[in-house]
């Protein structure tokens, strides 16, 4: 039997458990991609329920539906496209007032909304009782109470969706009225819009257009101005805005927001939300919040948390890597190479064995031991709510380099792999900050580069020197960020961020988030790494590097004081960063670097590798996010920085320390 198809979309504010509901609904069937032509993530999945095939789209989490951010525009365009039979508005019962702010706007869009009232347990623990039936009556749509983390309410939600689609439950969303003066303007405007802009009314609800015009929404203003008679309407809007601003003495966006909050505070909240008791004096979440945002102790806690993570991952990961390399290098590789060298001629078989399989195995031995656990822990920190605290603590510092607290997470992601870090730059609201951050994340030593740092400096000179390199790295990033902030046109934007309560993370959600980030590495980075590895091996087999050394020697030997052949591992590190170490040993003809390089050369080499061009996969990610021109600019900047840093190190070590 053919199943009936239903399309639904989840809309809601950030931190309301929307993705938990999404995961509960669609399980493993989800596909995560981008919205067409946008750098905003789009998650889609399917649920088979009885005779229904329900297609679920997870809209970006937004506080509002203005055109403040790309996310908000995407969410509302999608809702206006009327592709969904039902829009499920996920609402945080413990922060009902602010959440209804979005609900009211969804109603203005005349969308077929039902409400999923999530986090009922949290509301209860805060002493808040909500009259669900009354809320449903006032809104005129079904309200399903839920505790998504335990799965409570999911079944009812799905049944309600089906009831709505089958017409067993009618939606009669209440049209909430604004205050008298504003309401007058809205209805006059929507009358004129109906009369003079009929061509727009087939696509947009006239009342919504009127509200958005009054709010000064740029996108809607543009749409209206570009239609016939549109300018007459916008002139009228200007008159109305002037009048309202005069009456209220506020700017118009404040007036409209106030009115919306007024609707909620007057018509909805008093009848549905009851504070039963004051919240228990200090919950665990409050105490955790107190210490982790403490003006003094917050910082040592932060440092401790991240040092512990890095230490655990690089010691634990090291052990894990040894196990893996035992399996692959000691057992699997000899077996593979035996088979392949039996079939292919010598040079070609070397390329396939070292290039293709070597690259494949390297991807695994980096991703499994380092990237996977790192992103798992980071996702846990995020889902508990620690990351906003980190953003809070780091904000002042980030402002020095033209960013704000939220930029800290992508920088952290960079220590795993630069690819997800590049994609993570999306958290910045504006283009300027996004670009600035992209310049900086590629300078963060990813796990492959960390392997090189530990493998050369950590191994031959001492662990403390390796740590010093990380410190130098941070200093350079700060200086570069500071300079960029001065150079880029425009001014930095400030931090405005919700501080959600601490919450117990849900394993499933954490695992999914981890997977999405690791996937960026496996899908996007590894094919390029393997391809790069094949190219590299080909060049090696064709014995081309003496030529290269000849041309690179003025720079490499003259400026950096390194043996000319080290140009090879430096340049081809672009293809595979972690190979820089192995290649170095290869070109120098010794696996004991002590015999072929002095301490100064090791430090200079490592510093150059640390900053040098991001790997090919990162460049590809950069191109996708920022476009060709900027990706090239970003890559060039890393070359300049790495050479400069290497040169300065060389001079300092030679003249100050006499090395």
């Amino acid at each position, binding site marked *: 039997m053919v199943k009936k198809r239903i399309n639904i979309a989840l809309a809601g504010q950030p931190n309301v458990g929307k993705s938990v509901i999404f995961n509960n609904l669609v399980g493993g069937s989800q596909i995560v991609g981008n919205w067409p032509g946008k750098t905003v993530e789009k998650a889609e999945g399917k649920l088979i329920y009885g005779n229904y095939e329900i297609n679920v789209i997870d809209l970006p989490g937004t*506080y*509002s539906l*203005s055109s*403040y951010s790309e996310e908000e525009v995407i969410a509302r365009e999608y809702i206006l496209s009327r592709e969904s039979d039902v829009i499920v508005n996920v609402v945080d019962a413990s*922060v009902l*007032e*602010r959440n209804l*702010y979005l609900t009211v706007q969804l109603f203005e869009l005349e969308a077929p909304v039902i409400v999923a009232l999530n986090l009922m347990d949290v509301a209860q623990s805060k002493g808040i009782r909500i009259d669900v039936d009354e809320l449903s009556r006032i809104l005129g749509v079904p309200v399903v109470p839920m505790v998504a983390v335990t799965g409570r309410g999911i079944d009812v939600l799905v049944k309600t969706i089906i009831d709505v689609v089958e017409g067993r439950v009618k939606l009669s969303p209440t049209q909430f009225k604004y205050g008298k003066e504003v309401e007058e303007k809205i209805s006059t405007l929507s009358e*004129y819009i109906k*009369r003079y802009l009929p061509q727009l009314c087939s696509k947009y609800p006239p009342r919504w257009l009127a509200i958005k015009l009054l709010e*000064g929404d740029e996108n809607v203003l543009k749409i209206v*101005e570009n239609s*016939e*008679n*549109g*300018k*007459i309407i916008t*002139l*009228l809007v*200007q*008159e109305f805005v*002037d009048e309202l*601003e*005069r009456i209220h*003495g*506020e*700017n118009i*966006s*404040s007036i*409209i*927001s*106030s009115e919306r*909050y007024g609707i909620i505070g007057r018509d909805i909240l008093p009848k549905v939300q009851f504070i039963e008791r004051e919240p228990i004096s200090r919950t665990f979440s409050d105490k955790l919040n107190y210490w982790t*945002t403490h*003006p*003094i102790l*917050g910082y040592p806690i932060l440092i401790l948390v991240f040092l512990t993570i890095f230490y655990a991952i690089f010691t634990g990961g090291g052990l894990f890597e040894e196990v893996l390399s035992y399996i692959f290098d000691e057992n699997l590789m000899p077996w593979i190479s035996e088979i392949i060298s039996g079939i292919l001629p010598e040079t070609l078989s070397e390329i396939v064995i070292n290039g293709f399989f070597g690259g494949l195995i390297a991807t695994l031995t980096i991703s499994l031991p380092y990237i996977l656990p790192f992103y798992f822990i980071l996702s846990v920190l995020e889902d508990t709510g620690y990351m*906003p605290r980190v*953003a*809070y*603590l780091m*904000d*002042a*510092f980030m*402002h020095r380099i033209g960013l*704000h*607290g939220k930029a800290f997470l992508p920088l952290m992601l960079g220590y795993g792999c630069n690819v997800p870090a590049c994609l993570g730059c999306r958290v910045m*609201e504006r283009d300027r900050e996004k670009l600035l951050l992209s310049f900086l994340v590629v300078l963060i030593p990813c796990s492959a580069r960390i392997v090189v740092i530990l493998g050369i400096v950590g191994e031959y000179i001492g662990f403390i020197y390796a740590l010093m390199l990380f410190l130098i790295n941070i200093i350079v990033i700060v200086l570069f960020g500071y300079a960029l902030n001065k150079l880029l046109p425009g001014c*930095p*934007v*400030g*931090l*405005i*961020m*919700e*501080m*959600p309560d601490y919450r117990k993370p849900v394993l499933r959600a954490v695992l999914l988030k981890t997977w999405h980030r690791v996937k960026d590495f496996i899908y996007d980075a590894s094919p390029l790494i393997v391809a790069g590895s094949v190219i590299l091996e080909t060049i090696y087999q064709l014995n081309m590097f003496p030529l290269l050394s000849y041309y690179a020697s003025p720079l490499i030997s003259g400026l950096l004081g390194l043996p000319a052949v080290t140009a090879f591992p430096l340049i081809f590190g672009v293809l595979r960063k972690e190979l820089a170490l192995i290649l170095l040993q290869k070109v120098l003809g010794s696996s004991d670097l002590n015999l072929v390089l002095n301490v100064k050369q090791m430090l200079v080499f490592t510093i150059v590798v640390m900053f040098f061009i991001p790997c090919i996969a990162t460049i590809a990610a950069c191109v996708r996010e920022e476009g060709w021109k900027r990706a090239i600019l970003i890559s060039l900047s890393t070359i300049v920085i790495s050479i400069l840093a290497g040169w300065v190190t060389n001079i300092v070590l030679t003249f100050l320390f006499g090395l």
Partner: protein
Amino acid sequence: MGYDSSLIEMLMPKILETIYSISISGGMVTLDEVSKRLGVPTSFLEDVLKLAREKGLVSSDSLNLTDSGREFILRYRQAFIHDKLIHGRHGVSSLYSDSMSEHLKYDHNLSDEDLKSLRSFLSKFDGNIDEAEPLTNLRRGERGIFIYAVGGHGMLRRLSDLGLTPGIELEVVSIASLGGPIVVKVRGYEIALGRGVASRIYVKRLR
């Protein structure tokens, strides 16, 4: 197509003002020119002019304003500036918003010089209006009423979307050291505001 008479009446001052602006800047006042400036069809302008002529604000044989037309415009402007700047509760702050400056400059022929002197005049009252002071003045645990914020459209909208609307009570929950953000509790939840943002939020301290 005939236009609604109340629509015509509501927009007449704006149209006349544009005509006035063109004429005092020495330009040739034609229907096309006005239509180009405002982007409205000439058929609509004709309807407006018809009404204006009936009221004796525009001379019957040309596009020139009559004496009472000029007086009408000046009163219109005066009322606007008066209301906006003196009675506007956001007072001088609004002069710093780009949209307002544009508005004053282009729609009301205020020059940069005028704007500057207006600002310096009104700045004497800034901060005294409604006893507002920057949020950064409040200490941890202190409460205040949000009065207004100064900033670009994006920032203002973000703040009001998050529930920081004029008249709402807020409490300073924590203040990060080293010039970091300020966390305020508003409507039962917490929002972190960068120090720069916080310094442009004006509140009335509650004691």
